[in-house]
């Protein structure tokens, strides 16, 4: 037996065996169906819900009844946890502490990631999920630093044909975090500049910071 045959034989699970297993097929069908249903439900239900809300509003207006002591609307509840805390760091990092549990975080991340290139087909989902931990706060420079770190790891894992351009673009990336007086707060990690310019430096950086070594950098509280 040659090494190629041995390698094939070493596969733990054969696709044929999986495809022939009726329980696997049933579970896959169920998973696919539920995936579609889970993502479809909010959109499809939006119209009836809006219609019901409009109808309810019309009835309430018609009889001129206004309830002031009912449940608080979602928008009011969300304003209770703003992204910007108004608390700024002292010392080397004077940027603002951001509330990562805030509903304003996704929009902030949309803006902050827009200037940072990722390999085609990859996305920010894993990073967004890591950030979104209710009740914890992180300084704005750290949030932005983690975005660049994550992009560097993604480029190392998926070095597509655009990698050289992307690293060049990343060298031009500058943080936008501001201090209490509106001044730009520079990042505190000068080592991050090297992998942004050089593929060899990127490999060294990735060995230390990516894969199983990946963690969000920066204090949380």
């Amino acid at each position, binding site marked *: 037996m*040659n*090494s*190629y045959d*041995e*390698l*094939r*034989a*070493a*596969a*733990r*699970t*054969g*696709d044929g065996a*999986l*495809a022939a*297993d009726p*329980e*696997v*097929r*049933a*579970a*896959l*069908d*169920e*998973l*696919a169906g*539920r*995936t*579609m249903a*889970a*993502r479809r439900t909010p959109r499809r239900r939006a119209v009836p819900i809006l219609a019901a809300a409009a109808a309810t509003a019309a009835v309430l207006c018609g009889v001129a009844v206004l309830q002031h002591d009912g449940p608080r609307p979602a928008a009011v509840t969300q304003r209770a946890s703003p992204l910007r805390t108004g608390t700024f760091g002292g010392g080397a990092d004077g940027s603002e502490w951001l509330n990562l549990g805030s509903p304003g975080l996704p929009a902030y991340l949309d803006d902050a990631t827009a200037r940072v290139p990722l*390999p*085609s*087909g*990859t*996305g920010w*989902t*894993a990073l967004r*999920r*890591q950030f979104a931990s209710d009740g914890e706060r992180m300084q704005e420079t750290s949030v932005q630093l983690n975005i660049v770190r994550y992009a560097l*790891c993604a480029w190392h*894992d*998926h070095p*597509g*044909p655009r990698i050289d351009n992307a690293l060049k673009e990343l060298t031009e990336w500058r943080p936008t975090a501001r201090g209490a007086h509106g001044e730009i707060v520079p990042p505190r990690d000068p080592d991050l500049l090297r992998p942004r310019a050089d593929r060899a430096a990127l490999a060294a950086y990735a060995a230390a910071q*990516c*894969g*199983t070594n*990946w963690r969000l950098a920066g204090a949380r509280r």
Partner: protein
Amino acid sequence: MTGEQRFEAAVRRDGPALLGYLTRRTDAPEDAADLLAEVFATAWRRVADLPPGDEARLWLYGIARRTLANHRRGRVRRHRLAARLREHLAARADGGDDPDDRVRDALRALSDRDREVLTLTAWEQMTPAEIAVVLDLDPGTVRARLSRARARLRAALEKADARAG
């Protein structure tokens, strides 16, 4: 064909192969269920980009590969939707095949790049041209990488045999 129909057709046709791809690359087979749920969720979210015909298979492998890389970067997320598949895979693993440790050790000794092209060709039975699509590389680069990786695997196995013998 609507996006919904194309998605259903693609996951029905390629689901078992994608599950096999993930199972062969995770330590715990049941993790593959959660990763597959993530792959399906991503594919469904991006269903407008789902290419027609056989390209859909390679597109799904591309998503699976990135999902796996994210998984290695962090912890696997438990999907409520994957509970049934997870339980079944865990039960299946108890009576499953016994992998050849010698080959797996040799494979583990290779670089990620070598391992990836070798396993895509040996386990997923992809051609270099197909691997090139999944890895977003030039087919010539894949062929050269594959040739070097095969030589390194052969050398690693010979070394293991010499040590054992």
